[in-house]
């Protein structure tokens, strides 16, 4: 029934650090959150001071 390009239906790999234990997928999401936040703040915004997007 599931026809996906990437099959995620297998037990997750986990990342262990001290007492933190997190699935790789969740680590990816958290890293993405930080990266996207940084990019959103740092990326140049087109047409600054001038025309709208």
């Amino acid at each position, binding site marked *: 029934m599931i026809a996906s390009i990437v099959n995620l239906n297998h037990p997750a790999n986990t990342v262990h650090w001290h007492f933190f234990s997190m*699935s790789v997928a969740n680590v990816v999401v958290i890293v993405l959150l930080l990266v996207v936040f940084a990019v959103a*703040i740092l990326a140049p915004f087109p047409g600054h001071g001038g025309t709208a997007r």
Partner: protein
Amino acid sequence: MSRESRRREDEAAREWKGAYRPYDILKEASIALGVVLALAVVLTLLFSSPDLKPSTVQSWSRGDPVDFVTTATTELDGSSGTGSYGPPYNHASDGQHIAFIYLAKWLGVSHPINSAQDFVLAPLRSISGQPALASALSAYQAAPANTQTTWTSAYEKALGNATTNPNGSVKVKPGNYGPLPAMMGSLLTFAQSGGLDGALLTSKQFYQTDYTKPLLFMADGGVLATRAQQQHLLGTQWGMMNETGSYPGQVWLWLYTFWYQIKPFSTSANADILVMAVMGVLSLAFILIPFIPGARDLPRRIPIYKLIWRDHYRTQQSRGRLA
């Protein structure tokens, strides 16, 4: 920051009297909708979504008959998780508390469950045409309480070394178990045939949407926890944040599950209410950040805002408004 300077800053921030530029709010919203839709479709085509089939009492009793019978016996003598839970299911305990605050107890038993009656005796009574079972039930119910306890304790101990016969039934060493082997044998057969799933669900009325009884029964045994461990969903595995398979889960629950990993929560019998209380306070603080000294001042002290508004400050500087 002094109160006066805060008041002045607030007044200055009330209304922007500076430059504006053209902006199409509906176009922006439409573009955003298109972007989100595209992302959702791409993620769907790439990864789909998980859908592990639910466990049933039938699959449990067939897959692990010894665990099923052991759990059923603890339901009978009230030593199971549900049997000893307390409110909202029964009065077996006072429930969790913080100091003198017993919220579960105060809110009361709103979903009564008698583990012996609901999970064992009533389903067995519903089986007709089996005189041996009927007399075993009568013998059990007629026996004094301490005799019943002797039987269940001995049977639970023996089940620790039980084996499964090829036909799916359970074999224990001979002992003083009274009518329990006959009762549990019938309950196991009933469960393995699928009848117990239905009996637990429709015991009150035909139309049912409340799965509390079959779920609590399964949760008292090992079937759900075994699958959960394989899927990294246990509390000790930070399971609250996780999804089955390798899918991303509920990352936003990170702080909620964090407390369960550390003392005193990790070793407390009242961990749940303690964590709820901590998260309740933190959630309130989150909502009230504008009024909390320190929390409301951090953005000024750690000037990420200088990055966000660097174009604006550069423009202002070039116009010579800054010192």
